[in-house]
């Protein structure tokens, strides 16, 4: 009997989850946030349904504060034409002028991401939304199911999750309810990079080190991506060789100093790294167990 290698086993499990979602739900969607996990998801989506086109669209909830290189990358994916890419912006939030610079990470994330996502899911009537969250990212995610039930208000209740046995997923829902599906649940950050290298999956260039204009703020290196960024007193823009381990809204995502400009170097750097992936994410530092609360309210 031959056993699959570690990455082959993870890939097969993810493909199984994609197929189960497509078969069991009336209107599934894949959430596309343009990061490395999204790139891996898209690759798996194409593999799962080959030679057919992926039977679901991608949805990007645009906060209007993504790095410009991310938006360019997204538009390139859309131009390839084998998947439909839907973009949703919370217009109401935009009108209110919600900005991570003035309103802070909590309000910005709540309005532009969480509320924006709920609007989009309701607008298109999606009953299953596939996302790239991994259980190794954060403690409350470690308890999340692969098929994670949401009530009609998109709420997650950690105490009433459906037991999930084998690969037999309960996909039954009532009208108006939905599930979030996480095919990368069992992947780690290292698995993701090794898979990207093995499969030669394109990712946003921001993951590779390069001299970039940054400002040191609250202990993080924030990249100045456009002229909406305003300097505080005493701050100066410097060119530093940096890269990103994770990508979100540019004012909320810290860069790390690095010279890793190839996949091999990134993987070596990670192997030696002594800090966690999300340390640069401001939204994780909004208070202890803040992710758990955000998730209950419908955050991905």
């Amino acid at each position: 009997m031959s056993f699959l290698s570690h990455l082959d086993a993870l890939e097969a499990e993810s493909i199984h989850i994609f197929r189960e979602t497509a078969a069991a739900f009336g209107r599934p969607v894949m959430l596309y946030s343009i990061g490395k996990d999204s790139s891996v998801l898209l690759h798996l989506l194409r593999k799962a349904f080959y030679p057919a086109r992926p039977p679901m669209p991608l949805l990007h909830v645009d906060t209007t504060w993504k790095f410009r290189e991310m938006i360019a990358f997204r538009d390139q994916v859309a131009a390839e034409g084998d998947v439909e890419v839907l973009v949703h912006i919370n217009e109401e939030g935009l009108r209110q002028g919600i900005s991570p610079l003035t309103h802070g990470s909590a309000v910005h994330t709540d309005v532009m991401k969480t509320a924006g996502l709920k609007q989009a899911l309701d607008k298109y009537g999606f009953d299953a939304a596939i996302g790239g969250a991994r259980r190794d990212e954060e403690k409350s995610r470690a308890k999340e199911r692969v098929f994670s039930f949401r009530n009609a208000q998109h709420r997650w209740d950690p105490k009433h999750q459906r037991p999930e046995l084998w690969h037999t997923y309960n996909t039954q829902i009532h009208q108006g309810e939905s599930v979030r599906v996480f095919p990368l649940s069992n992947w780690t950050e290292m698995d993701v990079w090794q898979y990207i290298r093995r499969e030669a999956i394109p990712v946003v260039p921001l993951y590779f080190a390069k001299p970039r204009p940054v400002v040191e703020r609250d202990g993080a290196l924030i990249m100045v991506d456009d002229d909406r960024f305003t300097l505080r007193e005493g701050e100066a823009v410097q060119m530093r060789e940096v890269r990103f381990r994770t990508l979100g809204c540019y004012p909320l995502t810290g860069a790390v100093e690095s010279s890793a400009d190839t996949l091999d170097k990134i993987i070596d750097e990670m192997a030696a790294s002594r800090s966690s992936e999300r340390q640069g994410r401001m939204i994780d530092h909004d208070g202890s167990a803040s992710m758990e609360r955000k998730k209950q309210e419908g955050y991905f």
Partner: protein
Amino acid sequence: MATLDITPTSQASTQLLRFITCGSVDDGKSTLLGRLLYDTGMVPDDQLAALARDSRKLHADTPDALDFSLLTDGLDAERQQGITIDVAYRYFHSARRSFIVADCPGHEQYTRNMATGASNAGLAVVLIDARKGVLPQTRRHTYICALMGIRQVVVAVNKMDLVDWREDIYAAIAHEYRELAAQLGIAQVHCLPAVAPSGDNVGRRSDRMGWYEGPCLLELLESADTAPAQGTEFRMPVQWVNRPDASFRGYAGTVCGGRVAVGDEVVVQPAMRRARIERIVTADGDLPHASEGQAVTLTLDREIDVSRGDVIADAARPAPVADQFAAHVLWMGDEPLLPNRAYWLKIGTRTVNARVTTIKHKVDVNTQAELAARRLELNEVGYCNIDLDHAIAFESYADNRTLGGFVLIDRQTNATVGCGMLDFALRRAANVHWQHTDLDKQARSLSKGQQARCLWFTGLSGAGKSTIANLVERRLHALGYHTYMLDGDNLRHGLNKDLGFTPEARVENVRRVAEVAHLMVDAGLVVLVCVISPFQSERRFARGRFDEGEFIEVFVDTTLEECERRDPKGLYRKARAGEILNFTGIDSPYEAPEQAELHLRTSGLRPEQLAEQVVEQLLHGMGEDRPHA
């Protein structure tokens, strides 16, 4: 820092071991796992700093010691209560292997979570507190592991420092555990003494217990057998029919047993249609063969009917097919499992209707004693007979977890309320065949000049069901219809004489009435059924026995106050006096229909007027085929 030599870049080609940790509350499970993560260098500096900070905050008396349990207890409620509530999954690797560990809670009320963690695991790490020895929880966890098919156990006898590192204490516990494991059919047991907080025998061998010469926990995990083998015959449940255009028709799924090659003859089950494998398609190119665990797309050499839920199997050695089984069921629902209630059963990629027909016994999970049972409560395990409405291809769970393991889903709430492990098909499933008869329902209805129907009257005791149905039947009879009335009370004098009024008995009562009504409709009659039928679930089961449009649910809606005021049989008075238990509306619930074909609000109307509404609805539904009228 005592980290091991890890070279993570080598892990891409290593194999994955999924295991679980279990043990009773406070035996140091979370600490052991946290320590394992720490020893393998899996705790990044920022998390380590947070750990040191949190440890100081919680343990003012030992400010410098790290509380490794804080690495794994993540939910707010868990931190507050200092316990693990739900299964948490952790990921780590050593130079030799990648691991996924399901960290399972110890409390009895979370037995279902443990089973969940065990379902995908190939090995269990069982923790035992050296001061306490083998506890009922140890027995329960080991039983659940055995039930879920785990055949390798590593026993860590923890807190050896608190028993002065005594070998005799360790040896006695190891001996007792081995006896338990042998009883439960667990083939491989390895015991080791450990101290989780200081890492003795966790990530490295301890020099403080020279009398133990075996490997440390990490070494054992690195050398253990990986994924549980699923059986050697080729099996693949069809997940998705891939049809991009008229020229391609492929069947996508994950191989759950054995191996298949291009040219092999296969059979599509349960219909048993044969074909040969033409291509094994993947996005990375066609494969010459595929084996267990691979997600592939198969094309066949001829056009046969294949849909999601079918199983493609080796034609020479197909899977057994049946619709009645013996199985172990672990109940996970807050409401009890009631025999004869219909649930969804999902096995592989197929979902069917299922009923537990008999609970042969339940198992005391602490002692493994077999006890009589009429229902299963949360976290109880029962050995049951199960009846499906469709035959399925299956394997016994011991041979194949995918085709032998199922979940039960509540048809109203959609909650996952149970899981089960198939044992074998009941012989009667193979021996009782459906006898084909030449005359059918249509022929019998036609000879009576009518369309057969089931009018199902539901409502509280005293609501007026029988009174109205009686008037309806008289009217239909006068119009020339062939009818029969099945009254719940009357049936309890004969067919249902053996049944009481507990929820279990009510489920069975309604099932029998529905079956009799079904036979009478098959005979071409218009059948009027009057039973309280308090549960939506059973009314839905009854509806499912009939063809579209044949079943007319009539909700006789009279308020409890009104029924109690009328009290035609004096039952409410007795129920209120506590002389009758399980009385609907008093100490037993009535679940009102949500989508009845006819909703009769009885207040202010005479029975004759209500009966006329029913007759109109019935005749309207039959269109112009009214006989004799």
